[in-house]
Structure formats: C-alpha cells, structure tokens
C-alpha cells in the first residue's frame, strides 16, 4: 500500500496499531480457514468507535476495500482479506462496558471474547448463552457477524436471539445504533439483517447482549450405540417426547476414538455415542434426564452413563469438544465441513456421507450437533499425497450438496464467507440472491465492506477477488498472491 496512505491510517490509530510490513501482515492473511490466503495492504487496530469511523472514512476516500476481523477463528474465510485491503481488527476493543443483570442485558465492546462475558457475569449467576466451540478466543463482534451458534443453541437459539442492540459504523463512516436494551424499538428490524451479515454491511463496535440467569440444574447423560442409526433414532425419539434438551451431540466411531486418544476418557469402541444436556429447574432437569435415559435404552443404547459429579461432567464435555482437534491424532490433515439436514434424516445422511467417503476412498469422522441436524463431517486426508486434498474438498462439497437435497442448508454456523459463495446458488435462486444484494446495497452501495463474501459477485464480473484456493505453501512466497 502507498506509504502516504499507510501514514494516514497510522495517524488515526497510532503507529503501533497500524501494521503494513510484510512479516506483520502474514498473521492476517487468513482466518481459521487457512487454505485461502491473501495479503492485506494494511492492518489497523482501532481502540474506539470513533477510530473505526475515521478508518472507514479514509478507506472510502481512498477506494480501498475494508475487511473487518475479530479473533480470526472463523472457518469460512469471512475475515479473509481482499488483496491490498485494509483489515480492521477489533482485538483492542475488549471492555465490558455495563451490565444490568436485573433487566437481563450487558453492553460490551466488539472485541471482547465470548467466554469473557460469561466469566464476568458468573459471580452473579448469569451468563451469555451462545457458546461456539472457539468461545475462549472468538469475539462477540465476530459472533454478531457470523450469527454464531454452538452446542446449546438447540434450546437457547443463536447469536441473533441474544443480541438486543449493536453500534455499527456504516460505509459512509457514520455511526448508528440498531436496537437496544428496551423491547421493540420502532422501525424495521435492521439488527436482524445485520446479525449474520458476515462483515458485509458495516463494522460492529459495541453490542448489547441478552444475559440469562443460569439454570438451576444441568444434567448430562452419555449413551453409546451399535451404530449411528440407533443414535439418530434416539435423537428423534427424545425430541418427539416433548423434551427440549439444551444440547444433543453425536460422535461416530472415529470421533470417539479421537476423543479417547486426546483425553484418556474410558469411552468404549462403539458405533456412535450421544452426549445430552438437559437443564432447567431441579425438578425439570431431573425428570427430563431420566426420561431421555429411558428413551435411549428403548432405542437400542448399549449403555447409558451419568456423570458422578460436575468434574466428570466437565470431562465428558471436554471429550466432545476436543474431538475436533483430536482428529489430528488419527489423520495428518482434515477438512471441517458445516452443513445442516433435517434432524429426522440423520441416519440417512450419515449413510450417504459414508457412501460418498467410500467412493472417494477417504475417511470421514462425524462429531456434530445432532439435535438440530448440524453436521460437522471431518474429511480426513493426507496433504502429502498428491491430489488427495482436492479429493477431500470435492467430497466436502458433495456432502453440502446432499444437505441441500435433503432440505437443509450449506451452513449452520460457520457462515458462507469466501469458502461457500460458490454454493449459494445451489440453495437460493438468482432472485433470492438479488434481493439479498438489495439489502446489502442499502447499507453499503459501493461494496466497500468485505467484497466477495456471502453473495456471489454479479455473473458478468465473474472472478472472485482471490486466486482460487491458494495453498499455504504458495502463500509462503514472499511476493504473496497476486
């Protein structure tokens, strides 16, 4: 980037918080989707809404694209830079500004880590419900951009159900408050459109969060099954019984093995396992947990275990949460997919996944949010074997197409980002996408924010702003991608 322009950005945020040297920029070339990379022109780390607004005004004046970034944990390339853009990192804005627990809300800066909100409120018996698995590091601002979910959204909903208001810097550099702590603000529900817009409509700098009182009791059960068919049937039967569990997580043989290897848990070698949380008052949680256990047994469970104490409960959840990373112990490389199917189709979908995997000659581990049909197939491969990564990507793509065929979605929580733009047309018609684009242009007519994400570029413009699928090894070239 032109040094004169860099200096002007530095004048806004301070030289220390303005990165333009290649070694410093490398960190920002990708987010959690490391297979796609591009070098930004400059990275700025503003400390206030005013600084964000000044950065946006300058970028607009200079005609430079703006890519907002939280902690960079996203898995769809939502924070992937556009070559030469300005990346606006919110990491320095991490104050919890206000907590009004009696009225059930808190106001925080966008760079606050998700889990830090709940930690801050824990002593008062309150918490922030959405719990994406990266919650130790991922930011509230990033959660708003992605409409993040987590294991417990089955009962409690997603970010959109827990965000009451947002302070947003718009493309013209103006600052606007959408929503707020008081119910039913007048006018269109622009906040609903903003949440999940993946950084394409503006930059969120402050968020008013709904804060819940912790449930009185949480009960957990772990059940094992001969195969995913019985586990899937159990999920359907629990839901059909009228129970609304806080979470139902499912793991298949490979995922159980990975979790066992990572944590030393004495989980058996079985076809599938479910980890179920129910919560509520002591009476409600006890009753529903017992009933869920009976249903699991009636649906063919090999074994139903109850944690003896909170420590064992935490260990079970640690096993579930570590299953992702633990897959690294049983395979040199893997891809994480995120697709949704109607939950009644779990057994059929997993059968399809297994068939597709066999055809591709690859292994797939499944560890996912079964209660809402949110699959997370982990496609295992070896990047050292020529052609295998491409095969893995093709398989992951076929799994998404299957989700759409079954009436589901191409993403349940990771977002469309840069990664899945090409699949949007399989789920939505051109009219659907054009209508979404009208919403985008109402906020950002010049397409300054995060261009190329979420919505496919108009067909005539054709190319994506990134070289397709730049490999990490290529991006290590000091010249960077063109």
């Amino acid at each position, binding site marked *: 980037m032109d040094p004169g322009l860099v200096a002007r950005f530095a004048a806004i945020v301070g030289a220390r918080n303005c990165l333009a040297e290649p070694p410093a920029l490398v960190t920002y070339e990708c987010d959690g989707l490391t297979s796609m990379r591009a070098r930004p022109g400059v990275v700025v780390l503003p400390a206030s809404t005013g600084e964000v607004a000044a950065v946006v005004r300058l970028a607009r004046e200079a005609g430079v694209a703006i890519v907002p970034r939280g902690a960079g944990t996203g898995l769809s390339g939502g924070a992937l830079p556009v070559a030469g853009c300005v990346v606006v990192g919110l990491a320095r804005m991490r104050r919890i500004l206000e907590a009004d627990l009696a009225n059930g809300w808190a106001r925080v800066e966008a760079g606050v880590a998700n889990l830090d909100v709940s930690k801050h409120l824990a002593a008062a018996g309150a918490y922030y419900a959405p719990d994406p698995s990266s919650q130790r590091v991922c930011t509230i601002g990033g959660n708003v951009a992605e409409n993040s979910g987590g294991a417990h959204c089955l009962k409690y909903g997603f970010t959109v159900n827990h965000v009451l208001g947002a302070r947003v810097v*718009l493309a013209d550099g103006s600052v606007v*408050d959408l929503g707020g702590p008081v119910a039913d603000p007048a006018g*269109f529900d*622009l906040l609903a459109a903003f949440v999940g817009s993946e950084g394409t409509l503006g930059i969120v700098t402050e968020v008013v969060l709904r804060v819940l009182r912790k449930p009185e009791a949480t009960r957990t059960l772990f059940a094992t099954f001969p195969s995913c068919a019985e586990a899937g049937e159990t999920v359907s039967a629990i839901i059909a019984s009228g129970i609304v569990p806080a979470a139902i997580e499912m793991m298949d043989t490979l995922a159980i093995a990975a979790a066992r290897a990572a944590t030393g848990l004495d989980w058996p070698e079985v076809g599938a396992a479910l980890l179920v949380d129910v919560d509520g008052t002591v009476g409600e949680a006890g009753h529903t947990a017992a009933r869920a256990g009976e249903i699991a047994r009636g649906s063919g469970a090999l074994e139903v275990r109850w944690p003896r104490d909170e420590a064992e409960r935490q260990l079970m959840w640690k096993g579930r949460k570590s299953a992702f990373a633990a897959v690294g112990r049983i395979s040199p490389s893997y891809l994480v997919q995120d697709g949704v199917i109607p939950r*009644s189709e779990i057994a059929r979908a997993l059968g399809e996944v297994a068939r597709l995997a066999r055809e591709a000659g690859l292994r797939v581990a499944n560890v996912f949010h079964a209660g809402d049909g949110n699959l997370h197939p982990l496609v295992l491969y070896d990047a050292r074997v020529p052609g295998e990564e491409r095969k893995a990507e093709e398989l992951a793509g076929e799994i998404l197409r299957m989700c759409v065929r079954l009436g589901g979605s191409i993403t*349940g929580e990771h977002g469309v980002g840069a990664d899945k733009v090409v699949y949007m047309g399989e789920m939505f018609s051109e009219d*659907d996408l054009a209508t979404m684009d009208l919403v985008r242009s109402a906020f950002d007519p010049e397409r300054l924010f995060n261009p190329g994400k979420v919505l496919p570029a108009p067909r005539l413009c054709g190319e994506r702003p990134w070289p397709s699928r730049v490999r990490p090894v290529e991006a290590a070239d000091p010249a960077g991608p063109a």
Partner: protein
Amino acid sequence: MSAVARREGRGGDAVLGLVPRAVFEPSTVEEAAEAIRACDAEELCVTVVGGGTDLGIGGRPSAVGAVVRTGRLDRVVEHAPADQIAVVEAGVPLVALQERLAPHGQRLALDPPFPGRATVGGLVAANGFGPLRTRYGTTRDLLIGATLVRADGVVARGGGKVVKNVAGFDLPRLMVGSLGSLGLIATVTFRLHPLPEAAETVLLSGLDPEGLWRTVRGLREAQLEPSAVVALGAGPFDLAVTFEGFGPAVEAQRDRLAAAARKEGAACEVLDAAGAAGIRERHDAIRAADGLRLKVAALPSHFPGAVADASRVLGSAFRGPGFAGYPSVGVGFFTVPGPRAGDAGGGGPSAAAAEGARAVARTRELFERLGGSLVVQAAPEAVRAAVDPWGEPPAALALMKSLKERLDPRGRLAPGRHAGGI
C-alpha cells in the same frame, strides 16, 4: 395459468377509512406476485391485509389504491413433526395452524389475541404476540424462513426449513414488524415447540409497582422458568404467572412461587383450569379492545412505575383504560373499548379529543423519558390526527429509508405507514 381474483373495492375493504380502488385475492404465491405486478403496472399503492386485526398500527397509508387480501393463501404447505417445523401460507389463521399441529403434540409458541382471525403472515408483519412471549420471544425467534413478493412482483425466498441455518442475509426476520412496507409475505416457515404436558397458573393480586417489580425480579433470581408472566390492571396490578412442562416439575415451580409470595404477604391464589381460562379471557378482552390501543415499552425495572403513572394520565382523559402487559419483557398495551372511546373524541375535533391526544402525548413522554416508547395501534380519528403514531424517529431512520428505497423504489407498499413516515 389461473388469473388472480380481482374486484372493485367496497366500504368493507377500507383501511383506516380509505376505500381501495381494487381488491386482489390471490390463492397462490404466483397469483400474489401477479397481483403485485398489476398494482405496479397500474401505479396502485398496496396495503396487504391478513385478518385485519392490526391495521391500525402506525400511520394511515398516504394512499390505498389496492388491497391484497391473503385469506385465500390458506394452505399448511408442510408440517414435519419430527423436525418440528411447518411451512405455512400467509393467510392461514393461527387457530387453523394450531389445530393442524396439536394432534402431533406440537404448537407454534405464539398466543396473540384474535387467534381465529389473525393470520400467520399478518402476525409476522405486525409483530403480533401474547403471554408466551415471556419464554418464547416473538415471531422473530420462531421464524426460520419466508417467501416474499417484492414491490416489483419478484418472488424471493430467505432462510430455509431447518432451524439452524446461517446461509445468506436474514430476509425473513427483516419482515418481522415491517407492516407490509417491504414486501408481501407469501409463506412463512416456523420452528415449532412441543405442547406442554401440564400447565399451572399462580395469580398474585393487589401489587403496587414496587411489588410487581420485586416479584418479576424474584422469578429470575429464584431460577424459576415461567412460560408466561402477565400483568393486568395498573392500579393495583394483578400478576398471573404460568408454568408449563412436565407435571411434577411444573407443580414444584408453582408451589415455590406461591410459598415465596405468601412469605412476602402478597395475596396469592393457585388457579384451577377454569381460573386460568378466566385470566386468559380477561387478558384477551383488554388486548382486543380497539377504541384506543397503545403499545408501550420500557426496561422491566422502569416498566411497572411508568405503567402506573401512565394509567393515571390516561384515566383522566379516557374512561377506564385497561392494561395488559408482560412485565418481564417490558412491553404492554393500554386499551379502551371501541364505543366508549367516543367519550374522548370519537366524533371529530372536540375538547375531549384534544384532551385525549394530550393524554397520549404525556404518556409517550413518560416512556420516552426512560428510553422506552409508545406506538399508537388504534385510536379515535380525532386523536390519531393529533398524535404522531410512532413518536421519536428511530436512530437508524436514514438506513431504514435506504432499505425501503431499494426494496420498494416507487413507494407502492403501504407508503407512510411505518416509523418516520416510511
């Protein structure tokens, strides 16, 4: 292809006194699109009408060239019990949907007044809700997909049929409370909830504003999880708290609340089914009154005091204003039945009308001062003429106008009805 049913407008089709030139009654999404295209071609401004229960919300449209009635869009397109979702055409009355769902042990967790008339599309457009909002939120929290017809007649779909889905912008939620000014809602897809096995209601009576807030706050602190918390009357308040779920758990919650209330010395009664139905009838009668209907909102901690003050202010201009609200959410409604609203200016400009308008304005001040709001949902003509239905323009008005211009560039959809004159 069948042509959309069309006829001349009549007196009974009037929207706040404006008789439309044409009335369309589409029976398919494609016919709805055809109707909107016809209106576009003939330069007719469109008001979409479902059950007609909330047509008084907001401003009077600056023109009503055509009314599109959604009543013939009356099919439950799909109900997938195992997935707990339903795809429903906009004109299906809520009761008809609930009757389809109940044999499967399911419901849409939405209980506004007029369930027999209010349509699912209208409930989304008008953001309709009832006591269950306490636990389940509004249609915003229940809606997972929608098909809409844009002002240019293009049909667009957003969301999907699965609850967990973040693909694309959230067009469905953008429709919530849009009052037909961003597009015609043609179909909606909802997530459903299980019908509870048991329900128990506890009635506390004679609460002053402090007592009401203490009780509402106490529910949260005690980790009780009511489905509905309804305040009726405003001086003093009655508070009906309903627990739903599995039998023994519900009874335990009921008993804990009753014990806590008695310890505080509050008048407290555990209601039987007839008693609970009686409370529901009282609630519905207050909510349904449409001589005057004001929706008020404030933070829950401010809400009881503001409601009590407002009740006195409104009582000075209107005879016996009723109040029904949801204090744990901080939203409620002041109403006066139709015929009696005539006492305060039903018959045109008069001293009583001026007094009524002043009372509404003073009530709005009470709420706006606290960061809250007051929206006129129904009012006598003379009061409506003297009071802005929306109050303070929203902070994001410019952005809202920008959105309106993109989706309805010729301003054909309910022009002037929404906040800020949109």
